[in-house]
C-alpha cells in the first residue's frame, strides 16, 4: 500500500496542466500507479543533500553559441504540407476566442 498517497484531485490537476484527460476508470488506475512511484521518489528524502549543488546538465561544453548569420532553410512548403490544417500559408486551429479558458489568455512573453 503506498505510504505517500497522491490524491485523485492532485492527479486530475497534474493531468490538466499537461492537457491530458483521464476517464472515470483511468483516474483511480493512474492515481494508484503514480502513488507507488511517488513512494519510490520519497526514498530520496533519506539522502542528505545539504550543501550539494544540483546538476542539471552534463555537457562538457561552455559558451557554445552561434554567430548572428541569418539563414533561410526554405522549409516553409514542407512544413505546411505536414500540418493537419492550413490556409493561405497559415496554420489553422479552431477559434481560440471561443473557449473561455483560452479567451482569457494572451500570448505570454
Amino acid at each position: 500500500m503506498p505510504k505517500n498517497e497522491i490524491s485523485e484531485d492532485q492527479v486530475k490537476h497534474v493531468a490538466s496542466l499537461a492537457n491530458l484527460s483521464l476517464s472515470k476508470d483511468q483516474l483511480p488506475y493512474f492515481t494508484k500507479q503514480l502513488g507507488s512511484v511517488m513512494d519510490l521518489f520519497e526514498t530520496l528524502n533519506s539522502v542528505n543533500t545539504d550543501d550539494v549543488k544540483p546538476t542539471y546538465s552534463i555537457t562538457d561544453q561552455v559558451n557554445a553559441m552561434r554567430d548572428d548569420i541569418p539563414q533561410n532553410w526554405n522549409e516553409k512548403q514542407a512544413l505546411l504540407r505536414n500540418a493537419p490544417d492550413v490556409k493561405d500559408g497559415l496554420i489553422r486551429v479552431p477559434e481560440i476566442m471561443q473557449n473561455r479558458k483560452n479567451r482569457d489568455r494572451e500570448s505570454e512573453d
Partner: protein
Amino acid sequence: MNYLNKNMTGVHKQLMNGDITSEELTKQTLDNIKKTDTKLNAFIDLNDSKALDDSKAVDQKGIDASSLLSGMPIAIKDNILTKDLKTTAASKMLSNFTPIFDATVVKKLAAAGAINVGKTNMDEFAMGSSTEHSVFGPTHNPWNLNKVPGGSSGGSAAAVASGEIIAALGSDTGGSIRQPAAFNGIVGMKPTYGRVSRWGLIAFGSSFDQIGSLTRNVYDNASILNVIAGHDKHDLTSSDKAVPDYTQNIKKGVKGLKIALPEEYLSDGTDKNVKDAILKAAETYKKLGATVEKVSLPHTKYGVAAYYILASSEASSNLQRYDGIRYGYRSKDANNLAELYVKSRSEGFGDEVKRRIMLGTFSLSAGAFDAYFKKAAKVRTLILDDFKKVFDHYDMIMAPTTSTPAFDLGSKTSDPVSMYMNDVLTIPVNMAGLPGMSIPAGFSDGMPIGMQLIGRPFDEGTMYQAGYAFEQNTDFHKHFPKIGGAK
C-alpha cells in the same frame, strides 16, 4: 541473408571482392527481415524501395575501401528522424509523421555509404524497458519469443540478435541500448553524453539522451561510433573534443588495466547466475593481466528515483509540443482549441507516456520543484561524485548490465515500479553522462547475460579495448538464438 555468423569486416570484404553487390545484399536482407519479422516484430517500417535505390547507387559508385559501412545495410531506431521515411517513435501521436530532414547520425551513416533498410520498434517515445509500450505491438525476444527483448531499443536489439541486420542504431536515456543488448546477447554502446549529436533524435530526457549502436561484436560497434561521433553545430551540447579512431587500439588487450567492481551492483537484488557470470568475467580479466578490485558507489540505489524525476520532468516538457497543431495526430472531434489539445494528446499518447508526463509535470509544478526536481538534481551530483572518486583510481568499471535476464512478456506492464527498477544498474551511467557498454557475458536458462563496462567521460576507446579482449577470450557471442524456441 542472415547475419548470425557475420561481422562487418567480413561482409565488407565480400562487397569489395564483388562476391555480392550491395543491391543483392540489401534485397536479401529485406527478404529475410520480412520472413523473420513475422515472429519478432522488430521493425515498424521497411525502407524497401529507397534502400534498393541507395544500394544501387553505392554499387555504381563502387564500394569504398576506406569505409567499412559502404554498401552495408543497417537499421535505425524509429525515434531517429529519417527524411521522407515515416518516423513514429512507436506512438499513435506520430504514426503519420514524415520528417523533412535527416538526423545528423543518419546523414553521417549515409555519407559513409550505409544503407538504411528500415526503422526498428521501440517503447513509445523510448519510455520503457520492454518494447511492450509500442502502438505497433511488442517486439519478441529471439532467444525466447515469450520473453521481452528489453527496451526501449528492443526492436534494434532483436533485429541484430536474430541476424536480421548486422547493426542498428538505438538511443539510451536510462539504459535503452545496454539493457536490450544484454537481454539479446549482443553488444550495445551508449557513448558519453555529447559524443554523438542529438539533432534529429526525438527528445525524451534531453540531459540523458544519447544515440549509440547495437552490433554483433565489439569491433563493429567501434567502427560505427567512428562514423557517428563528433561535434555538430546543430547540437550545442555535443562535444568539440576530437574523435579518435576507436578501432586503432582495440586489440591492445587489458594488461595493466585497473578495473573497479562496484559491490552495489552485485547486491542481493542481482540474480545469482548474473552475479556468477560477472565474477567469472572478473577472473577472465585478471587472467588477461588486468587488476579487478571491489569499490563502492554508495548512491547507486537512489539513481532510479532521481532519474525518474529528472527524465520524466524533461520529458513532460519535451512532449508538450505534440498538440495536434503543426504536425502529427490531431483528434477528429475537437470543437474548440482546448478540446484540440486535450483530445489530441489523450488519444495520441499511450499509458506509459501519460504516466511519465504526469510524473514530470508533478515534479516541476509549483510547490514540488524543490522537493522533487531540485532534490533529484542534487542526488545526481552525488552519483556523479561517486563515479569521479572511483575514476581517480581506476580506468574502468565492470558490472552486470541488468540484475536479471529477460523477463516474460506482460509480466511487468501493470507494475511501473518493478518495470522502472529494471534499469537500476544502467541509470547511474546516464545520470553521470558516462559511456556504458553491454557485452555478452553468459547465459541463464538459455537467456543471455550482459556485462556492463563503464568508462571515464570520452574514454570509449578503453572500453572497446577491454570489451574486445573479453570477447576474444570467451565464446558467448558465438551462441545464436533459434528463433521460435529456446536454444
